């Protein structure tokens, strides 16, 4: 098997001392970001993105772009694990994907008095879920990439269209709101020079807008500042319950015993989480709710759910971590981010001078396989750190609100300024922070906006290249079997919400009570 040789090479890269050191730093940062409410994985990765520019250009001895991606991805792994700690101990989700842990994680810790078991259950299932997903990643990545190398503009556009369609058709929020956000992202991406004709557009005479609106300040605003404002309103912070956060070996052994009883659930949720995570826009958060629903659906004692059932922790955790890892698969193989966080990592690739997509496997195999190997190592490291450092991490919650909130604003502003040394970017961050807060409140999804913003330019380029190749005829898209199939699939996906709302109206139910609200309140 060629894969094993490549993976071994990847491990050789990932085990390089500088890469291991940066992985360690990243995982610790990720855990801290995960624990802090009001600072999410997406904004955490976006804020630290400017630093990776220095890492990628070799400011540290021996560092290169591989170190940079290992660093960014490591933050994500840490955040995936860390977000649950506050959910379980303090009933405050540190990350959106940890919300589901409030249903059973907190009751098990508080009411049944087993915080150690609740944490250990979450960690072992997260680890197993991520491991399954990484193994699938290892074997699926190369075949997908090799197939994608044959894609022309028509196929590439069809893939983009399909990923936009999944955002609309399978999104949790109202499909028209997803569509509006998607179009807004495409529009924002179009600002500045047109890549094909070189004409300027949508800049309203402003020279500063000629190079377009940068992705990173927008994301830091939407996610970082937006979350700060949202959590200020909830006023949840500042109130910390006093639960002992000790995690003993006994808890871990008990969690492993409980895991063995639920091995089928955890493994199947991990596999479902993987395929769910590969779909664009559906990262760990959606998968965690799906995983909870599945765990309850197939449980023999449904009445225990909501009271501290371990399946209600393990099910969603396995799916969430698996989906988190899987969201990197389409990013690396096709250049399509599977989640807002992987959209930020993809923006990083562009900034380091790499083109995400199948060519990476040919031109930079060290980069790709180093990343894959680091996913194995990163999760092992995160798992061990979680078992050892929970009390320390829980202490972060005691940092007062009056310090942590302005501090997050300060580092957000450093992050958005330092990428281009631009004060305009700082204002973009602040303005988009307010916009992001408001959109969240009005229940507009942000994932389509972010994914469309990062994919907008390439979507337009491939669309117009295909039209040029077809001498202006849209029939060109149906010349190849693959693009035909993908486009038909995209149309079907977009029609799903329409069909659903017509059927709901026939039954006399409000069409807005679609799949999303059902998934959000299992």
């Amino acid at each position, binding site marked *: 098997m060629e894969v094993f040789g490549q993976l071994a090479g990847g491990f050789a890269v990932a085990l390089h001392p500088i890469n291991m050191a940066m992985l360690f730093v990243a995982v610790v940062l990720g855990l801290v970001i995960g624990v802090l409410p009001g600072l999410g994985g997406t904004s955490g990765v976006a804020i630290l993105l*400017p*630093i990776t520019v*220095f890492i990628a250009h070799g*400011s540290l001895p021996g560092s290169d772009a591989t170190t940079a991606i290992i660093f960014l991805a490591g933050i994500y792994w840490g955040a995936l694990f860390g977000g649950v700690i506050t959910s379980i101990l303090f009933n405050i989700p540190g990350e959106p994907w940890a919300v589901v842990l409030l249903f059973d994680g907190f009751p098990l810790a508080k009411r049944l008095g087993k915080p150690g078991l609740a944490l250990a259950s979450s960690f072992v299932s997260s680890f197993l879920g991520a491991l399954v997903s990484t193994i699938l990643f290892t074997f699926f990545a190369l075949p997908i990439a090799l197939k994608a190398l044959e894609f022309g503009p028509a196929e590439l556009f069809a893939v983009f269209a399909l990923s936009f369609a999944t955002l609309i058709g399978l999104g949790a929020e*109202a499909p*028209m*709101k997803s*569509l*509006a956000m998607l*179009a*807004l992202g*495409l*529009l924002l991406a*179009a600002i500045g020079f047109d890549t*094909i*004709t070189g*004409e300027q*557009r*949508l800049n*309203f005479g402003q020279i500063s807008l000629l190079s377009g609106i940068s992705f990173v300040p927008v994301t830091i605003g939407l996610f970082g*500042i937006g979350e*700060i*404002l949202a959590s*200020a*309103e909830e006023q949840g912070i500042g109130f910390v319950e006093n639960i002992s956060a000790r995690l003993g070996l006994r808890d871990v052994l008990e969690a492993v015993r409980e895991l063995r009883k639920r091995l089928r659930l955890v493994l199947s949720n991990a596999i479902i989480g993987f395929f769910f995570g590969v779909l664009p826009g559906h990262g760990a958060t959606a998968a965690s709710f799906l995983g909870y629903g599945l765990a309850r659906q197939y449980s023999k004692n449904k009445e225990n759910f909501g009271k501290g059932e371990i399946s209600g922790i393990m099910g969603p955790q396995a799916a969430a971590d698996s989906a988190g890892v899987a969201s990197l698969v389409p990013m690396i193989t096709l250049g399509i981010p599977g989640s807002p966080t992987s959209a930020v990592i993809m923006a990083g690739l562009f900034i380091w001078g790499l083109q995400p997509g199948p060519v990476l496997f040919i031109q930079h195999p060290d980069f790709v396989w180093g990343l894959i190997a680091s996913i194995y190592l990163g999760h092992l490291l995160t798992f061990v750190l979680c078992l050892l450092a929970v009390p320390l991490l829980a202490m972060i919650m005691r940092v*007062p*609100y*009056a*310090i942590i*909130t*302005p*501090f997050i*604003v*300060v580092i957000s*502003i*450093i992050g958005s*300024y*330092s990428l281009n*040394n631009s*004060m305009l970017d*700082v*204002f973009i961050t*602040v303005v988009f*922070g*307010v916009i992001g*807060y*408001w*959109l969240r*409140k*009005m229940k*507009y999804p942000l994932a389509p906006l972010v994914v469309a913003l990062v994919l907008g330019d390439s979507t337009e380029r491939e*669309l*117009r290249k295909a*039209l*040029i190749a077809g*001498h*202006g*005829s849209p029939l060109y898209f149906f010349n190849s079997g693959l693009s035909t199939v993908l486009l038909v699939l995209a149309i079907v996906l977009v029609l799903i919400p329409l069909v659903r709302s017509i059927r709901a109206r026939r039954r006399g139910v*409000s069409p*807005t009570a679609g799949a999303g609200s059902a998934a959000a309140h299992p």
Partner: protein
Amino acid sequence: MRPYQVATAAAIVLIAAVAMFDSRAAFNPSASTAPGDVGSRWYPFWAASIMGVASLIVAYRALTTPQAIEGVFEGSRSLFAVLKIAVPMLVYALLIGGIGFRTTDFTYRILPPFGFYLATALYMGLFAWWIGRYKIWWVAAITVAFPIVIFAVFEIGFRVSLPKSFLYTSGLLPF
């Protein structure tokens, strides 16, 4: 909830209308384009029109389907909680860069740029004093310590140059 939903959708429709107006050349692509190409305005025009139509449907839905009665904020307290964060943040961003405008031969300054470090000191200090209600020496310690640590990490460690104040340009301060 209804007026807010409709107003949000209307704002998006307005953005769409502006973008469509800017892209009105979509219907007569310039001669410089390649044969078969739709031109540079075509794509933003249709993206904007999709956005506009989608928001019109959102507004229509908000008007015709039952909406939650209560307003967007749960009482004035939660509105103030948001404003307490949002307003100082805006002021902080303005302080860093200063306020002014430029004509072709002169730059008018209403507020001189305080630079990143002075603005951060004021901003962190304000929160410690106003929200945290700390004793005055704690406020002073936070005001001094955070900018220094950030200077050490970013300016020296990562060699990221953050905006400097008007006192730096006149040589009075190292930041």
